[in-house]
């Protein structure tokens, strides 16, 4: 790079390499991420939209606050973080790589000055014997040394886990790998939802962006059930699902139970137990109190309708045989809530075979007799459907991150140099991390060396 080029590109390059940019991006990301935890994301409920002013609503829309984690400015910050960590790695990796692959094996004066724990041991004896003894101690206590002969001087060099210096770059890479996995998922995957009534099958699901997606096979809901604890809390939501290819059950995917926390996967598409409900239609007869002028009224399960006097009737629960709940009464029964024209609410049970009991409700139904004829009802299961081909890339990134963080925090590159010259043994060491711990290790090593070497005055 010429000086001219440097003056133009250098400041921009330095900006993208700087730790200050890292600090800025991380802190900014932390702060602006709060927005999306306060403002509801996706399609905010109408109650929330009514609670804020029109100006705010417009502003939030323009700024993308209702989908902030996919807004251009949030993506830009994540890109800035990525560029920053790529630039930092490009800048520092070559030097680190050289340290790992081409270690300095000779402790010269300039290196010796940078080491904080240099010890000198005076010995008497032949330098080559001393060299062999030192090498033996290093081998048992630390690592097998490399010996360099430089005229009359022997240099010994031993190191441990030099590759641990790469860990921090592995962590940086893992962030990028996770991003790539997320991008793969958003390009080639989808999240959808489907309701299947008991006995029905579906081959298409609706994605979150309201697109219809063909599964390429069909799924049938054989049965849905809810189990409860003795205290009434739900214990298990279970769908029995069958995968159908060309209308025929697929071996191994026939009547598979799917519960919350135990989904069904077929051809890369996974079905998760998510919700449930009742489907059905019920018939009521509205007449004068004596039973004349009967008019039918149909209400969906969980639905509502209007009575002749304008009051609303909501269907809560039904049974086709009430006798287990109410001994002495037979036939179907429906529990309803009536919102009366005068503003009052009343919940009561309408029977199929008991006109006398139904007449007691005349005051709440505008003077009309309402009877339940019965209905058909079945459960449906609500399944979350997902396909995400990027998920294994994300797990790869997460694994790389965990391993990288562990090595970066708890392992260090430790190097020891020894020079043997005219009976004088000079020992120095260096650790990329945890200097305190390494200092103690070096002190111990020197004590062991002294034991193995013929000392000058044999003290």
């Amino acid at each position, binding site marked *: 790079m010429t000086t001219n080029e440097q003056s133009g590109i250098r400041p921009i390059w330095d900006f993208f390499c700087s730790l200050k940019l890292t*600090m800025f991006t991380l802190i900014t990301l*932390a702060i602006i*991420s709060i927005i999306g935890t306060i403002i*509801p994301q996706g399609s905010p409920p109408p109650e929330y939209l009514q609670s804020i002013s029109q100006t705010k609503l417009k502003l939030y829309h323009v700024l993308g606050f209702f989908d902030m984690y996919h807004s251009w400015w949030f993506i830009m910050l994540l890109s800035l973080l990525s560029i920053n960590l790529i630039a930092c790695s490009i800048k520092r990796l070559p030097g680190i790589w050289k340290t790992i692959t081409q270690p300095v094996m000779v402790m010269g004066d300039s290196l010796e000055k940078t080491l904080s724990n240099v010890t000198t041991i005076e010995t008497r004896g032949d330098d080559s014997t001393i060299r062999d003894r030192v090498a033996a101690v290093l081998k048992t206590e630390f690592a097998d040394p490399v010996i360099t002969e430089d005229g009359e001087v022997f240099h010994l060099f031993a190191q441990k886990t030099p590759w641990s210096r790469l860990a921090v770059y592995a962590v940086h890479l893992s962030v990028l790998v996770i991003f790539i996995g997320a991008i793969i998922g958003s390009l080639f995957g989808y999240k959808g939802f489907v309701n299947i009534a008991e006995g029905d099958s579906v081959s298409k699901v609706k994605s979150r962006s309201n697109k219809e997606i063909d599964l390429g096979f069909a799924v049938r809901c054989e049965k849905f059930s809810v189990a409860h604890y003795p205290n009434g809390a739900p214990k298990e939501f279970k769908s029995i699902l069958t995968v159908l290819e060309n209308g025929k059950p697929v071996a191994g995917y026939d009547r598979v139970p799917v519960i919350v926390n135990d989904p069904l996967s077929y051809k890369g598409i996974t079905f998760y137990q998510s919700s449930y409900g009742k489907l059905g239609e019920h018939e009521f007869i509205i007449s004068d109190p004596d039973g004349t002028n009967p008019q039918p009224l149909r209400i969906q399960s969980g639905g509502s309708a209007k009575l002749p006097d304008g009051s609303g009737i909501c269907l809560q629960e039904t049974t086709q045989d009430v006798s287990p709940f109410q001994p002495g009464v037979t036939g179907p029964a429906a529990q309803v809530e009536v919102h009366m024209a005068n503003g009052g609410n009343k919940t009561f049970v309408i029977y199929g075979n008991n006109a006398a009991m139904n007449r007691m409700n005349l005051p709440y139904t505008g003077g009309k007799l309402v009877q339940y004829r019965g209905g058909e009802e079945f459960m449906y299961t609500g399944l979350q459907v997902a396909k995400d081909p990027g*998920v294994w890339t994300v797990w790869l990134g*997460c694994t790389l991150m965990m391993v990288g963080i562990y090595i970066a925090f708890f392992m260090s590159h430790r190097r020891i140099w020894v020079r043997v010259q005219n009976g004088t043994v000079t020992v120095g060491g260096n650790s990329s991390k945890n200097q305190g711990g390494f200092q103690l290790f070096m002190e111990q090593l020197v004590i062991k060396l002294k034991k193995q070497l013929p000392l000058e005055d044999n003290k």
Partner: protein
Amino acid sequence: MTSSSLFNITTFAYLLSMLGFFAFAVSRIKALGTAASALAYGGLLSQTVAIGLRWKESYDLGIGHAPLSNLYESVVFFSWTIVLIYGLLDLKYRYKVIGAFVMPFALLGMAWGQLSLDSGIQPLVPALQSNWLTYHVITCFLGYAAFAVACGISIMYLIREKHEKSTPDNEQSIVATFPTGRVLDDLNYKSIMIGFPLLTLGIVTGAAWANYAWGTYWSWDPKETWSLIVWFVYAAFLHARITRGWAGRRAAWLSIIGFAATIFCYLGVNLLLSGLHSYGG
């Protein structure tokens, strides 16, 4: 003996331990410091037994599960992890006075749980019936606890720094029992070095569980987002260590802010942001 009475003994032990550490900081009587740590270790032991006992009691009720399933159980476990991490730091570095700034967090957790939370053992709702619950909760709370200890140490750092500026060296004060600023800065870093990998693992196990149970490893739910905010703050802290001018005071503040974000992630999201969530039904 029931788990409930053991939890009460634990709370009492943590209270006495905290007071002991305060008395030690003021009086500098060594025996007080030793007694305070002994109480902390005793409390930790009784709490460990109590948690195990509660686990067994849930099986006796026929609804067996690890005691990590509701606010009461989590706050008790949080308190346990704080004392555990403090204990490890104490065994390794032996700066007793740190207890005066860490035990209050543990006591606060236990006192809140024992005095005002519903301690009944409830059956697990279907959403929590997974082994991931145990891995996820244990890693997250060990991480949170390390951050609590780092926060206590950072507060000590700031007190010490402020005091050194305003008082001459020779004056006798509580601060004189504190480790030096350099040591506190280093211990702050060491605690976060324990907390950060655990938090990362907690987020990863949470994502793995979410993917397994719902088909999305990340959905920007407020709880997830806040855990990421905490992660960003401590990632900034780790980079601050190698940025000139960011060690010491600024690092201490980052550590305190990080713990505040942690607490918001743990409690604030459920207690304060729930109002917004109730719209979603």
